[in-house]
């Protein structure tokens, strides 16, 4: 029985019917759990041997009005199996408890997600701006952030897309040196 | 009349110094397998620096630093006989006057650079002064046997006593001459002893806040300093009989140190200081013992 099935087995009898666990592909185990179960699950997996929280990523489902947070865990003694814990948040309404006590490296991941998506992590000591100095616009990675309009307004340069599309048909003119 | 002569020699040495710097850059380039700038590049650099319109200054002492430096090194130049023929001010002072005058230049620059609130500048000066603890002693101990051998402390007499090839002091005291050559590398500030002006570590050290005309004055100071420092070495160890031999000798010695500079890495500062208390000190002490035994 492969290692990922063993992991799925363990996760299943821990979660029971609270969350679904499946194998996406070889060595990739996914678990979808409600928001309040994420931290206990992280602690559990950490004791099992998943010492490394490689990343926290966030997906913005604009149409569903949901943010999806994915915690990537990795361990050396599980023959390279990655465990991904997914959870969903209401856009701009829900906040997420911070995972700093369990995984200290979550400090910067959460700061970046806050800067790029605007999710507030309770218990995080420093949520001020991180990479974008003097940033005054809305969090830029959100789907409803209109980059072209922002660029035009801030850097005073109009959108080149139509210009390039319009030029597409005309043959290439030989520009004479003035 | 004498004043015009002195000013003439002063201008001549500045021109020769700038020429040496230009040729030095060409030689370093050739060693690195590239063409390098034209030999008159140093003149263009200094002219450009003086043509700068507006440069930053951090206070009166900061602006006067390069002026004192250039004045100090030019005074020292006048006390150095340029070979037998050149009647400069050498009748008025001997080796110790020269050794204590040569310090006014770096002191002026150190005071000026210290005024700018830039830590790079002060670290550069602290390194330059500590390095002085290394090479200055060796240079002094290297020249000692020659002066005592000729029973004089004036550089001009030392030149007079050294005739043609066989009885050069460098031949009589080869060990001290070698020690003096190593010390000269530190005095000129060429790699491996250019910690004070290390561009990568402390952004060119004391000159970090100097631009425009200040840097122009410092370039002139560097040009005259090259001739003065190598000149001392040549006068003491090879007694040039006329001014052509003098400039030829300084040129060869300077090119030797430039070649070393092109290929050598840079020591750490405490290594550089301790280096001078190793082999060079031994060489120089043997030179003195040789004098005692052979008196």
């Amino acid at each position, binding site marked *: 029985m492969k290692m990922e099935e063993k992991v799925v087995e363990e996760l299943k009898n821990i979660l029971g019917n609270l969350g679904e666990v499946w194998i996406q592909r070889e060595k990739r185990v996914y678990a979808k759990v409600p928001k309040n179960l994420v931290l206990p699950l992280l602690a559990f997996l950490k004791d099992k041997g998943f010492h490394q929280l490689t990343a926290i990523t966030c997906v913005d489902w604009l149409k569903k009005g949901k943010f999806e947070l994915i915690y990537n865990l990795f361990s050396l003694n599980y023959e390279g199996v990655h465990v991904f814990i997914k959870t969903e948040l209401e856009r701009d309404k829900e906040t997420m408890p911070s995972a700093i006590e369990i995984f200290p490296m979550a400090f910067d991941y959460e700061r970046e997600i806050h800067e790029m998506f605007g999710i507030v992590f309770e218990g995080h000591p420093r949520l001020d701006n991180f990479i974008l100095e003097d940033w005054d616009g809305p969090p830029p990675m959100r789907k409803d952030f209109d980059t072209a309009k922002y660029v035009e307004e801030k850097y005073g340069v109009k959108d080149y897309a139509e210009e390039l599309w319009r030029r597409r048909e005309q043959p290439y003119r030989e520009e004479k040196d003035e | 009349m004498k004043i015009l002569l002195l000013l003439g020699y002063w201008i001549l040495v500045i021109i020769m110094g700038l020429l040496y710097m230009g040729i030095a850059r060409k030689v370093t380039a050739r060693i690195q397998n590239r063409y390098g700038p034209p030999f008159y590049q140093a003149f263009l650099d200094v002219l450009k620096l003086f043509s700068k319109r507006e440069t930053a200054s951090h206070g009166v002492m900061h602006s006067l630093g390069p002026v004192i430096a*250039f004045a100090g090194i030019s005074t020292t130049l006048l006390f150095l006989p340029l070979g037998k023929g050149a009647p400069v001010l050498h009748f*008025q*002072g001997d080796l110790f*006057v020269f050794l204590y005058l040569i*310090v006014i230049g770096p002191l002026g620059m150190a005071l000026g650079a210290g005024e700018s*609130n830039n830590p790079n500048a*002060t670290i550069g000066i602290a390194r330059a002064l*500590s390095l002085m603890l290394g090479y200055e002693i060796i240079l002094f101990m290297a020249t000692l046997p020659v002066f005592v051998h000729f029973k004089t402390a004036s550089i001009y007499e030392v030149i007079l006593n050294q005739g043609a090839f066989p009885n050069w002091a460098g031949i009589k005291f080869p060990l001290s001459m070698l020690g003096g050559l190593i010390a000269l590398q530190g005095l000129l500030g060429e790699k491996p002893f250019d910690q004070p002006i290390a561009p990568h570590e402390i952004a060119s050290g004391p000159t970090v806040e100097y631009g*425009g005309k*200040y840097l122009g004055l410092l370039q002139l100071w560097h040009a005259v300093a090259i001739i003065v420092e190598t000149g001392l070495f040549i006068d003491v160890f090879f007694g040039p009989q006329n001014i052509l031999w003098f400039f030829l000798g300084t040129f060869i010695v300077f090119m030797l140190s430039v070649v070393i500079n092109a290929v050598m890495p840079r020591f750490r500062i405490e290594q550089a200081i301790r280096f001078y208390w190793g082999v060079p000190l031994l060489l120089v002490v043997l030179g003195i013992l040789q004098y005692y035994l052979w008196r």
Partner: protein
Amino acid sequence: MYNISLALLSILLGALVFFGTLSHKALRIASLVVGILSILAFTFLYLKPGSLEIVKLGVFAMSFNLTEVSQFFLWIIIASFILSLFSLLHEERSAFFYLYYFLAFGFAALTVMANDLLTLYMNFELMSLSVFAILLLGVRGNTKEIAFKYMIYSLVGAYFYLGGLFLKFRYSGNIGFGPIVGASTLTQIGIFVLLALPFLVKIATMPFHNWAPDAYYSASDSFTVFFSAGLSKVGVYGLAILILKTFTELFKNNIYLPEVVAWIGGITALLGGIYAFMSDDAKKLLAYSSISQLGYVLVGLGLFTPYSFSAGIFHSVAHFVFEGVLFVTVAAVIHRVGTSDLRKMGGLIKKMPISFIGLLFGIIAGSGIPPTVGFPGKWLLYEAIIMKGDLFLVSLIFFASITAFLYSYKLVHSIFLGKLHKEHRNVKEAPLGYIIATILFLVPLIVFGVFPGALFERIYTFTKPVFNHDAFFTLNSLKTQIGFAKMTVAGITLISMFVISFILYLVSGKSYRAKQEDNYTAGEWVDEDFASHYAQEFYGFMRKAFGKLLDLSAEKFWNGVLSIFKAVAEMTRRVYTGDVRDYALYLIFFLIVLVFLVGGRL
């Protein structure tokens, strides 16, 4: 009764100032000014050189005589005392401080005027006592312990001196300054060492120096001006008298003694310089630099050739001038800034330009650059040592003189250059008294630098009878068999070159005044309290280069000596056990030894 009345005058003035301070501040300043004027009046009108005066004190008599040597040193002591009084105007001190201050001056003057070893001893002791009292009223640090350390060194030195005195009396029958006759060279050297010890302590030669940095650090700032510039000259006077009058034959025909004394001076100069540039406190740095410069004086005196001796005396005057101006300017800075720690100051050139100029000329003279007073002494010393022929000594001294550049730049940079801290924004220029003292010090610094002949003439008067060498100096140039140096030419060329390059500077381009924070910091924006003043570990990397040499300290040496005494005392204590049986045992043991020694011939 003329010259001695200087001491009576100083006691009177001390009392005057004592009551003046007790009553009211204005009276204190008034009484100090009266003190300055009356001492000046006394020296110019009333001093009569060359008159022998005997003062009967019951059993023995104290004899005073103002010879050329003592007059020479008296001038230095009076000058340094008056200049330190100028800076004292601005210091609030307890009334007793002023009393002891004037007493110290009076006894120092008397010591210099003494005509025989006993009077020299008595006044020397009284002077040390009053300095001890002043140190007790110190300003910073553990003043009691530091004062006691100073007193112990002076007392031990004085008791050795007494031993030497008795030996001299035993051999030559008198205690005047005359030569010792009939004693073997070894005993003569012994007597010289015993007699010279207190003076070596006073000029802080190496093994006996570690009272100096603490004493200078803790003493009140204006007193350190008099302490280092004036009182150390008493030590130089003592050595000069011993070498000039009593032990001339010994120094002439013995070859090893001059070498040893000169090497001790050289090592003091070198180690003093190294510790100076490694210390982080302005007063301690200056204390070590003073020790180092006095090391040169000892080399000059010890070498006992005509040139080196006059070089030593000249350099002691130079030491008085540039150490004086350094201590006055540092006292002014401490008066304004409140701390003497180099790491906390910086950028004061913008606020105290005159003190900066004073300190700048002080360090230029300290490192011996030609047109200033520091140069002729050093130049002559080098010439003398080379003529004598020991090249290693001259290299050691040259090495020591390089350290002068290091600690001078550290002092000037940490206090005046670099970044002006926020709290020193409203620091004003030094008060008037300090400025007058600085300017008065600068006058001899330039005058004796450009015209050393004026001073050498006075020195020539009392060194000629001993060495009968011909005059090696004219007003502005020095000439020895092997070298020649003209002071004015160096000065003139330097000034003219400065003018030429200044014109070149004016002709080209303009320059704007950049703000203090507007520095190249690789583009990073830097605000007010960005620590950009490099004064913390100024020569930190030197610790790696010098390493072992730095932890070699006299403190450890004396602690070692202390532990030896303790061990010996411990052993003897155990002998007296208080038990009769042990004493009986000792008696029998003693008898056996006696029989063995006598060998049965009883």
